[in-house]
């Protein structure tokens, strides 16, 4: 399971809590055990955070 490759679509939907329960758990497990997945989620999450901060400034 740790080698399961997630698409950006799945990881992005994970950030929004929009996957079903099983899939959310699968991504969470992968973040804990797979550095590649964890890094990618961190990147996408950072981009998202900046978008929110940028919007709040306006």
């Amino acid at each position, binding site marked *: 399971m740790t080698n399961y490759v997630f*698409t*950006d*679509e799945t*990881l*992005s*939907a994970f950030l*929004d809590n*929009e996957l079903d329960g099983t899939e959310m758990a699968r991504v969470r497990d992968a973040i804990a055990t797979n550095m590649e997945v964890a*890094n990618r989620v*961190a*990147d*996408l999450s*950072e*981009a*998202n955070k*900046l*978008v*929110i*901060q*940028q*919007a*709040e*400034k306006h």
Partner: protein
Amino acid sequence: MKQELLELLPRLRRFAWSLTNAEHDADDLLQATVERVLRKGVPDNIPVDRWAFTVCRNLWIDEYRAQKVRKNAQWDPTLNDNQTVDGEREMVSHIELDRVNAAMKKLPEKQHMVLSMVAVEGLSYKHVATALDIPVGTVMSRLARARSRLVEMLELDIRAAKAGERS
């Protein structure tokens, strides 16, 4: 046109309901939509129903944004006496946020729109899909492309960042 609008009301009401998720807000939104359409009229080349749905959606987005701004203002430390400083926000410089703004503008309009609705306005995928009349899968893919493109443009790749000066 009035007659057409009248026949459209039940569908429009369902649409308003799907956007607001609250009976009271849906009625307000429906009323505002009908008033706007009657006052401003319908462009010649656009069917009344299509136009009414567009007006409804835009009004809702405007109102939603206004609410969001009001809510944020309550928590903005510069607008009250609360001296608490959001450390994380402090770290992000104005320059960086300007870069984010510029990068956002480079995104295709459709991606930009979906990202704003989900990330900034906090709407569910289902809400966005209904509001824009697109499948949920399209919402997902536009979001993923927008975020991935921002990671690229803003050079947020974590491995690169570790080696660089970002801390």
